[in-house]
Each structure stands twice: as structure tokens, then as C-alpha cells.
């Protein structure tokens, strides 16, 4: 493909580790040219610039002045809004890491800025591209297990450390980090919004200043009941980082998704560790392909800013519920 026809993309911040894999996958696409990056952590920016052989700009403003059509935002959650609005005003399409932001007002401003400036905002929910998930959704759409009655979900993880455990930068711990993926899947499968959320939340596993475990229970409009465990509860000795699971109870059948169970067992004496090597298909590349195609073919984003907002709202509702020790009705007032 001629260089001029390629979709030119800039990376705004490598604070979130996904920036690394996103950049690698984007650079592997024939239809994409990654122009450069900007990172407020200069050292990290230089290291990434060297690794990917792309230009590191002094700041985001300079990156946005370049001839680029789109940006990928992988900053700390609390900076999503500022960067996204800046990018929107510079008329760049946006792929924003989840969660969309740390509060409803910021999310609304982001969506508004994109609308006003005629640019597209897509949220990075790669779980929608997991093969087991897309297959399950197709089985449900075909009516093969009848009406959906209940969903039991988990998105367990390990303790991430870094800015993830600084509430000012992340907006919240395990509940903020791991509620949005699975709630997004449930919304996508059911085509319904959460009506009521209840949560028990604690920081008892790691005893840091931020929530690290809990369990959410919610009900969707239309009556589907659901729960979700977003805990950072996989110990260091565990075989893998965590999981995404969905047990979907239908009137005529039950579907169980264990999206990261495609594993080869490795027993490594040098690390005294048993771990899983995943052999599943890559969901990130499909998500990035969708983002690039959105730009090339002028399509609507597969996962909108509104999707990002509604998923985050459930996490915020969970925090409010845990604080009040009672169920909370959505949307939040």
C-alpha cells in the first residue's frame, strides 16, 4: 500500500501497558503507519521511541500537529478526558483505553467534544473480539438457548501495582479496573442496561489504600440477574494472570465461556512455577483492525463512547452501593 493511503496514527502515552501491544500490532498492519508518540514520562517515551523506531514528540500538542488521522490514548485513566478532548479539537479520531474516564462528567465531555468536532471515539473493549465470546453471542442471537435469565461473570486479575493502585490516577482499584470489560459484554449480549447494582467491596487481599476485591450483583432492565467478581485475587503463584468467564443461563440451555482457558501447561523448575501458555486467537488485533477500518471506510465505531460511559457507570454505582451498604438504582443521579 502506498504510504499516502495508510491510516496515520499517533500514540498518546504508554502509561497503560496495553499501549505496547497495540503499537506493535498497529505497526504490523499494512494499512497503518504509526507516526510517533508523546508521553509525559520522558524516559518511558524515549524507551518506546527506541524500541518501536518511531518519533517521540515533546508533548501531545506537537504530536497532534502532525499529519495524523487518529490517536490511541493509553494514559492513566484520570488523564483520558484531557487528552481525548485535545485530540478531538485537533480533529483526530480516537481509540481510548478503558475505562473511558473516572467520572460521568468527564466521559460526557469527551463524547460531546468528539461529536462537536466530527471525530469518532471508540472504546478499547477487546473482550468483544474473544472468539468464545463472539461464538456465544451468535448462539444466543440464533435463539438456541432461548430467553436469557441470568449471567454469572468474573474478571479476575493479579495485583497490578503502579498508577493502577493510586486512586487519583486510576479513579478506583479492582472494581474500576475489572468491572467494565464484563459489564460491556453483558450489555452487548443482552442489549439492555443495568437497572440496579449492589456491591460488597474491600481491600483485604493486598491491604493497600485502594479496593482490590469485591463482588457485584445487578439486575438488567427486563429482569436478567447477574453477578461479577472483579477482584485482583490471583496470587503470584497462580498459573495465569486472571480470567474472563461468563456463565449464561437461558430458558433452553446454559453457555459457559472461559475465554482464556486455551492453555498449555508449563512447569518451569527455573522459576519454580507452573504457568499457562495461551494458544488462543488474539482479540486485540481484531479490535485494532475494527478501529482502522472505521477510519478507512468511514464507519461508526463498533464500541462507542456511550458504551464506555454505561460500563463505567456500573462500576461507579458499585462504589456508591458499597459505601451506602444498599442497592443503587441506575442511571446515577
Amino acid at each position: 500500500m502506498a504510504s499516502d493511503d495508510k491510516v496515520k496514527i499517533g500514540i498518546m502515552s504508554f502509561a497503560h501497558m496495553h499501549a505496547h501491544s497495540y503499537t506493535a500490532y498497529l505497526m504490523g498492519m499494512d494499512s497503518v503507519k504509526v507516526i510517533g508518540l508523546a508521553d509525559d514520562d520522558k524516559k518511558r517515551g524515549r524507551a518506546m521511541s527506541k524500541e518501536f523506531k518511531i518519533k517521540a514528540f515533546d508533548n501531545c500538542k506537537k504530536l497532534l500537529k502532525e499529519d495524523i488521522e487518529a490517536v490511541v490514548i493509553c494514559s492513566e485513566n484520570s488523564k483520558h478526558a484531557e487528552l481525548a478532548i485535545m485530540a478531538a479539537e485537533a480533529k483526530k479520531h480516537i481509540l481510548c483505553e478503558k475505562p473511558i474516564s473516572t467520572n460521568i462528567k468527564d466521559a460526557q465531555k469527551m463524547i460531546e467534544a468528539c461529536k462537536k468536532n466530527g471525530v469518532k471515539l471508540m472504546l478499547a473493549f477487546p473482550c468483544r473480539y474473544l472468539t468464545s465470546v463472539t461464538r456465544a453471542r451468535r448462539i444466543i442471537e440464533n435463539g438456541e438457548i432461548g430467553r436469557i435469565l441470568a449471567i454469572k461473570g468474573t474478571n479476575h486479575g493479579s495485583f497490578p501495582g503502579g498508577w493502577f493502585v493510586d486512586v487519583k490516577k486510576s479513579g478506583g482499584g479492582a472494581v474500576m479496573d475489572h468491572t467494565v470489560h464484563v459489564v460491556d459484554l453483558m450489555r452487548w449480549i443482552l442489549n439492555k442496561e443495568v437497572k440496579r447494582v449492589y456491591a460488597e467491596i474491600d481491600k483485604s487481599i493486598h491491604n493497600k489504600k485502594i479496593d482490590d476485591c469485591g463482588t457485584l450483583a445487578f439486575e438488567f432492565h427486563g429482569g436478567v440477574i447477574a453477578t461479577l467478581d472483579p477482584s485482583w485475587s490471583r496470587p503470584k503463584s497462580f498459573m495465569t494472570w486472571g480470567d474472563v468467564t461468563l456463565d449464561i443461563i437461558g430458558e433452553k440451555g446454559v453457555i459457559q465461556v472461559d475465554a482464556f482457558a486455551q492453555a498449555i501447561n508449563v512447569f518451569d523448575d527455573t522459576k519454580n512455577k507452573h504457568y499457562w501458555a495461551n494458544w488462543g486467537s488474539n482479540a486485540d488485533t481484531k479490535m485494532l483492525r475494527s478501529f482502522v477500518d472505521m477510519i478507512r471506510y468511514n464507519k461508526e465505531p463498533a464500541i462507542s463512547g456511550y458504551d464506555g460511559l454505561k460500563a463505567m457507570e456500573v462500576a461507579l454505582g458499585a462504589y456508591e452501593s458499597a459505601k451506602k451498604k444498599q442497592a443503587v438504582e441506575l442511571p446515577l443521579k
Partner: protein
Amino acid sequence: MDRVGVIGCGKMGLKHMDCFRRIPGVKVVGVYDTNAVKCKECSGVKHYETVAELFKDCDIVDICTPTNTHKEYIMEGIKQKKAVFVEKPLCRTMDEANEILKEAKKKKAKIMVGHILRYFNQYANIKRLVDAKAAGKPCVVRISRVNGFRRGSNNWFSSLEKSGGVILDLMIHDIDFLMWCFGDVERVYAMNLMSKGVQDTDYALAVLRFKNGVIAHLEASWAHYSGFRTSVEMACDKGLISYDSRNPNTLAVEFAGGRNFKDSPVDENATLVELKDFINYTRSGKIPKLDIDDAYGCLEVSLAALESTKTGKVVTIKKGKF
């Protein structure tokens, strides 16, 4: 010789009868069932036409009837100074439970409720690991018990009034197990299908907060089609404990023609061990692995969960113990 009379000839009644017969010094004198046809299907024992006649001939009554009928048989047992074994749950409502406890304490009656998990090797060993702080302090617990739907006599399970649905039938086992491990419950939030009017099946999800801080997620299902399955996961501050009944198959057999089965056999038949513990209690007075207060507390939490499904609100456990 201890003479046992079994009331109710359903699945549990038959199972108990088989086990009681294997305990030395115990004799099953006979059975009674409101359905005479069902009664006659039990072989090798006398069939009583009235429960009063059965009471006359036994020292111990074993109540294996639909949940909403437990109370009247228990009260009759106490009145007639019989030792009483009753399949879980103790009874259907807290009013009934209060009446039973009051009378049982007054008369010093020996009553045991069949919360059998405490007698299963795997659950007893999980409890041992928890007590030994094998992975540190438990923080978030997930426990599950799923099965297909059984109709029972006159489809009594599908009546919320009679059975209490899957919460009072299956989830109550795990509630008892968790209370055995972690003590009293602070509050409960639960959702189910039966309270929403779904027929001939039930599925329930509950979140418990224990007084010791543990958060527990419970799943109980009659909506799973591939048979009985249970699991436990305890995420702790120094590691994780997990058990899944699907995985430890120490025995797998496949026959030409496609029939196959998997099993994980143990020497101890949990029902037999449970009933032996009960018989020992009736003979020596040694309190079994769970006493009536445990069963009362477990019922209170289970009914609180059921209440939560109806109101959509969290229920704080007030009483704790009778």
C-alpha cells in the same frame, strides 16, 4: 436396639433407610408416606398407614418430607420424646423455627438437621485448610452448587411456599458450610428466578458479607442440564484455595457403545457418617458436627436471602443465634 421410623419415601428417605440399616444396633421399623403407593415401593420394611402408629413403634424419627411439613412432624417428635433427624432445611419459616427451638430447648430434645456438607471429605478438608490458614486469610469466596431440575412428589420443589426454591434446597448447604468456616453473617443480598415467577426451575445468586469480613458469592442452580456439580474458590491474602467436582475424577470408565462414567470414590459414605454421628448423639449425648443452633442460624440467613430476592434490598442479619 434403636428403632428408627422414616417419614417420607422420596429420594432422601430411601437413602437414609439404606444407611440406617448399616449402623450396628439400629433397626428401621418402618416407613410412612402420605402417598400410600410410594410407601409400598419401599421393600423390606413395614408400611404404616398412619404416622401415629409409626411413632408408637420407634425411638427415633427421620423426617424426609417436603420442607413445609417438617415442623408438624418435629413438634410431634418432641412431644413424644423421640430423637429427631430432619433433612435440611430445619423448616420453611422463622416462625416455625422459633416454635421448634423454644420447645426443643424446653424439653431438651435431641434434634439434628441434615446439613451434610460437613461430612464430605472435600468440604471437611477445605475447612481444615482454612483453619490452618493454608493460604492466609480468606477474602473473597465463590461457591457453587448446580443441578438439573427435579420434580419430586407432586412437583413440590417448584412451589416457593413448599420448598423455598433453590435457595432453601441447594444454596442452604453452602451457606451452612461457609458459616461453619467463617461464623456469623452480617448481611445478605440475593436474586433468583422463582421470585420473578419463572416456573419449574430456579437459579439464585447471592452475596454474603460475614462479620469477620469475608465476602462470599453463592450460586445455586436447578437450571443446569449436564448434572450435579459443585465448586469452591477461596481467594486469600496469601494465596488461593480451589476445588471443583468436575476435576478430581480418580476413576473414569468407558464402555464399548459409548456409555461412560466418571467418579471419585471415597471409603466414607457421607450420609452414613452423618447418620452415625446422629445415632451417637442419641446414645451418648455427644453433640454432633452441627447442633440445632447452627441449623437455626443457617436457616435465618437462607430465609434472609429469599427475602432479599423479593424486595431487591440487602437484608441485615439481626438475631444471629436463637
